[in-house]
């Protein structure tokens, strides 16, 4: 498959919210088809159809266990589609910007001789 065809397949597979939810669940480890069906209000054949789309796009593969045929995530196409590490970078950058603000506050508090207060910001 050419790189552009592979990207097309990746984006087509990602266009569906159920398929994105399936991928999100698989980021935590492999799961059998019945395990994958649990949180979704749809039949096993419907979920299997989504799994076939994800498999054709190379986003998931089947495990070695012949009985359960657990599905697992293949990270590479997602990484290619989004640029290696981009989401991971954003994830941390958001936290580190909050840490910048907290450190500024701590520096100010330190000058005043007080301790920083705890406060919860919504994410």
């Amino acid at each position, binding site marked *: 498959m050419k790189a*552009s065809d592979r*990207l*097309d397949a990746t*984006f087509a597979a*990602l266009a569906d919210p159920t398929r*994105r939810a399936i*991928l*999100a*669940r*698989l*980021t*935590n*480890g492999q799961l059998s088809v019945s395990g994958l069906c649990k949180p979704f209000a749809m039949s096993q054949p419907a979920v299997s159809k989504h799994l076939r789309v994800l498999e054709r796009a190379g986003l998931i593969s089947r495990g070695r266990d012949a009985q359960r045929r657990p599905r*697992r*995530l*293949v*990270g*590479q196409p*997602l*990484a290619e*589609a*989004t*640029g*290696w*590490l*981009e*989401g*991971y*970078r*954003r*994830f*941390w*950058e*958001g*936290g*580190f910007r*909050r*840490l*910048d*603000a*907290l*450190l*500024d506050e*701590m*520096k100010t508090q*330190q000058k005043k001789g007080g301790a*920083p207060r*705890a*406060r*919860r*910001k*919504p*994410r």
Partner: protein
Amino acid sequence: MKNTLRLSTPTDREVVIARVFDAPRRLVWDAMCMPELLKRWLPGPPGWSMVLCEQDWRVGGAFRYAGRGPDGTEMAMHGVYREVVPPERVVRVESFVFGGQARGEQLATMVLAEQGGRTTLTLTVLFPSKEARDASLAAGMEHGLAEGYDRLDQVFASSARA
């Protein structure tokens, strides 16, 4: 001046994050050590809230974080400190539990280096396998996806031009 995050994968099983902060490392250390401060900045998926934050920063001491998503799903991270050298170095074993399902262990090493009143934080996470690392990076990507599709749009635009 805006401090940018540097991200690299020096080996198949590692991810390294480096970032400069305009503060002495004692303050950065405190912002990591004190649960009430850590809670204020530690990143999590959008819509999630941290419901538990306990950490005992001593060799052999345990830590436990737990978060709850908008749909009630629980995500937890727990582990044990292997090395604690205030205010410059900490090594800990971490494992994730998501919806009751445990992920493999990973080894995280954080180093704080101070120069001219600024601190460089370097976080190295060593995963048990390349697959585990890639899955973890892909999980980060899913959060990126939830934040918005602008990066995907860029890729889309560039692949359409190709």
